[in-house]
C-alpha cells in the first residue's frame, strides 16, 4: 500500500514541474503576442484598478476637505449672531446663562498654557533622549530602547487621563511641594551636569589656555556645582508650596508632555540621524570632542528637523482632549498671576468635548455653534503649525541635500 502510494506521488511531482515549466514558457511567449481581446481586457483591468485606487485616495483627501468645510460652515452662524470681539477678547464664559456669554479668551489661554507647559517639559527631555539614542548609545541598546519609547504613543489617552485624575492629582495635593522638588532635582541635576560637562570642555581652552586638562576639570566642576546648587535652591523653595487642587495646568502639562515625548524623540532622532556620518567624522578629525561634535556640529545641522519635532509635539499637546477634560479642572479663568500653573484651566478641546450634548444639538443655538467656532480655531492653529513644520522640514531636507 505505502509503496504504491509513494510511487505515483513522486511521478506526479515530476510531471507537474515539467508542466509548469512548459506553461511559463507558453505564457511568456503569449505575453509578447497578445490577442486584441486579451490586450483590451488587460487595459480595462488596469484602468479599473487605477480608478479604484484613485477613488479611495480621493475619498480620504475629500474627507479632510469635508471636515474643514463642515466645521467652518457650522462656525459661521455663531460669528453672525454674536460677533468676533466677545469671543476673542472677553474672559466671561457662561454659555448656559440667559443671556449667554461666550468669552473664550481664558479658554484660548488655557490651551496655550498647557501646550506650552507640555513643550517645556517634552522638548529638553525629548531632545536629550534623541541625542542619546542617535549619538551615544550603542546600536544594540538603541534597538531595545526605541520600541519601549514608542509604546508610550500606543497607550490610549483615556488611560493617561485616568492616571492623571486618580493617581497624580491626589499625589500633587498631598505631597505637592515634595513632588515638585523631587521632579526639579530629577530633571535639572542631570541636565545641569550634562550642560556643565559640555560647557566646561568647550570653555576651558579659551578661559585657561595654559593647562587645558586642569582647566577642563576645574571649569566643569565649577559649572556643575553652580548648576546643581541652583537646582537645589529651586527645589528647596518649591518644597514649601502647597497645592490645593491637583487637577490643574501643571498636572495636565506634565501628562501631555509625556504623551508628546514619543513624537518629539522619534522625529528629532530622525533629524539627527539624517546628519551624515561625514560631518561627524570630519569634526572628530579636526580634534573636536564628542560633546563639541554633538553640540556644535550635529545639532545645528539638525536644528530645523528638531524644530519641526517641537512643533509636532506642540500640536499633539494642543489637540489632546481626554486628558485635559479629565484632569485640568476646566475652570474658564486666566490664572492669577497668569503664569500660575497650579490653578485649574479650561482648554478648547475639553470645552468642545464637555459642552457638546444632545440638548444643544436640538436647539441649534449659539451655544452649539460656538463649539464649532472653537473647533475652527483649533483647526486653524494646527494647520498653521502643520504648514510651518512641513516648511521647516522641507527646507532642512534641501539644506542637507545641498551640503
Amino acid at each position, binding site marked *: 500500500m505505502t509503496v504504491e502510494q509513494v510511487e505515483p506521488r513522486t511521478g506526479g511531482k515530476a510531471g507537474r514541474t515539467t508542466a509548469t515549466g512548459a506553461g511559463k514558457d507558453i505564457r511568456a511567449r503569449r505575453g509578447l503576442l497578445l490577442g486584441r481581446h486579451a490586450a483590451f481586457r488587460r487595459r480595462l483591468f488596469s484602468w479599473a484598478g487605477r480608478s479604484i485606487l484613485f477613488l479611495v485616495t480621493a475619498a480620504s483627501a475629500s474627507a479632510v476637505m469635508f471636515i474643514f468645510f463642515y466645521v467652518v460652515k457650522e462656525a459661521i452662524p455663531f460669528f453672525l449672531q454674536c460677533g468676533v470681539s466677545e469671543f476673542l477678547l472677553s*474672559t*466671561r*464664559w*457662561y*454659555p*448656559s*446663562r440667559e443671556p449667554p456669554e461666550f468669552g473664550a479668551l*481664558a479658554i484660548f489661554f488655557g490651551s496655550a498654557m498647557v501646550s506650552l507647559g507640555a513643550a517645556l517639559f517634552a522638548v529638553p527631555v525629548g531632545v536629550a533622549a534623541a541625542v542619546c539614542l542617535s549619538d551615544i548609545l550603542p546600536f544594540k541598546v538603541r534597538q531595545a530602547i526605541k520600541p519601549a519609547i514608542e509604546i508610550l504613543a500606543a497607550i490610549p489617552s483615556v488611560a493617561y487621563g485616568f492616571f492623571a*485624575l*486618580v493617581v497624580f*492629582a*491626589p499625589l500633587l*495635593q498631598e505631597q505637592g511641594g515634595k513632588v515638585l522638588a523631587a521632579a526639579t532635582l530629577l530633571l535639572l541635576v542631570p541636565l545641569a551636569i550634562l550642560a556643565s560637562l559640555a560647557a566646561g570642555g568647550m570653555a576651558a581652552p579659551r578661559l585657561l589656555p595654559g593647562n587645558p586638562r586642569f582647566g577642563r576639570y576645574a571649569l566643569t566642576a565649577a559649572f556643575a556645582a553652580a548648576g546643581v546648587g541652583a537646582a537645589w535652591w529651586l527645589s528647596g523653595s518649591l518644597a514649601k508650596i502647597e497645592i*490645593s*487642587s*491637583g*487637577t490643574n495646568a501643571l498636572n495636565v502639562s506634565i501628562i501631555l508632555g509625556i504623551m508628546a515625548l514619543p513624537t518629539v524623540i522619534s522625529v528629532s532622532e530622525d533629524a539627527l540621524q539624517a546628519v551624515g556620518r561625514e560631518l561627524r567624522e570630519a569634526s572628530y578629525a579636526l580634534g573636536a570632542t564628542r560633546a563639541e561634535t554633538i553640540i556644535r556640529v550635529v545639532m545645528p545641522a539638525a536644528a530645523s528637523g528638531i524644530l519641526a519635532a517641537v512643533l509636532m509635539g506642540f500640536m499633539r499637546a494642543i489637540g489632546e482632549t481626554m486628558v485635559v*477634560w*479629565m484632569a485640568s*479642572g*476646566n*475652570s*474658564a*479663568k486666566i490664572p492669577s498671576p497668569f503664569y500660575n500653573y497650579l*490653578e*485649574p484651566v*479650561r482648554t478648547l478641546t475639553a470645552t468642545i468635548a*464637555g*459642552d457638546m*450634548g*444632545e*440638548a*444643544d444639538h*436640538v*436647539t441649534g443655538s449659539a451655544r452649539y455653534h460656538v463649539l464649532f467656532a472653537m473647533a475652527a480655531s483649533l483647526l486653524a492653529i494646527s494647520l498653521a503649525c502643520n504648514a510651518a513644520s512641513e516648511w521647516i522640514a522641507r527646507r532642512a531636507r534641501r539644506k542637507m541635500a545641498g551640503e
Partner: protein
Amino acid sequence: MERERIAVRIGWTSLAGAVLVAAVLSRTSAAEDKKIVVDGSTTVGPIAKAFAEHFMQQNPGVKVTVAESGSGNGAKSLINGTCDVANMSRFMKKEEFKAATERDVFPVAHVVALDGLAVVVHPSNPVKELTRAQVADIYMGKITNWKEVGGPDAKIVVVSRDTNSGTYEAFEDLVMKKQKMAEGVEYVGSNGAVRQRVQTTPGAIGYVGLGFVDETIKALKIDGVEPSKDTVRSGRYPVARPLFMFTNGYPKPGSHVHSFVTLHMTKKGQEMVEAIGFIPVTDYK
C-alpha cells in the same frame, strides 16, 4: 393581442400595489398601538430609558423610543402631539399649559421620582452644615476659605458638574437661584467624577445626586436638614425637586402608556429609580 397583454400587466400591477398599500396601512395602524414615544428632560431620560428597557422585555412587540431633548422640548412635543410622554425636570409653565389647552391637549403630571442633591465635602472636613445662601456664596466666589464658614484655614476647591448636565441645572435652580458661578469653579463630567475629586481633595466642596453619596465623602446638612430619602420625600430637605412625566390626559387604565407611566409605583420601578441614583416616591421594603 397587444392590448390584452397591457391590460393583464396593468391588472397585476394594480393588484400588487393594492397589496402593498394594505400591508403598509395595516403596519402603521398596528404600530400606532404598539409604540410609545417619550421625549424631554435629560435628567429624567435615564429613568425613562430604564423603564423602556424593562417595559419592552415585559411586553414584546411594544416599541418604546426615548429621546432626550430637554424639558422645554419635551413639553413642545407633547403639545404638538409628536410624543406620548413628556419627561420634565420642572413643572409645566403657564404659557405651556395655555398652548396645550388651545390644542385640546390636557397635560397630566406623574411624579416618577425625586431628585435630591447632596452637598459633599472631604470626610476630614470638620464643617457639618451650611445654609443654602452660604453654599451659593461659595459657588459665586464670595466665600473662598473654609474658616469663613467655621472650618480650618484652607482654600475651598469648588467642584461643579459640567453646565450640560441635569444635575447642574437642578443645582443652579435650587441653590444658585440664577446667580452666576465664579470663574474659578472646576467642572467635571459625571457624578462619579465629583465624588472622586471630593474624596481625594481635603479642601473640596461638590454636589452629587443623593444616590452617589457613600462613606468616602461627607454630605452636609443644608439649612439644618440632613439629606436623606426621608427628608427629601417629606419635603424638608431643600435641595430637592420632583421629576415628572406628563401625558395628554390621564391615560386609559390598561393601555400601554398607562402601564408605562405607572411603572414607578411597582417594586421593580422603585429599584430602577434607586439604581440610577434618584429617590423613589414609593417605599417598598
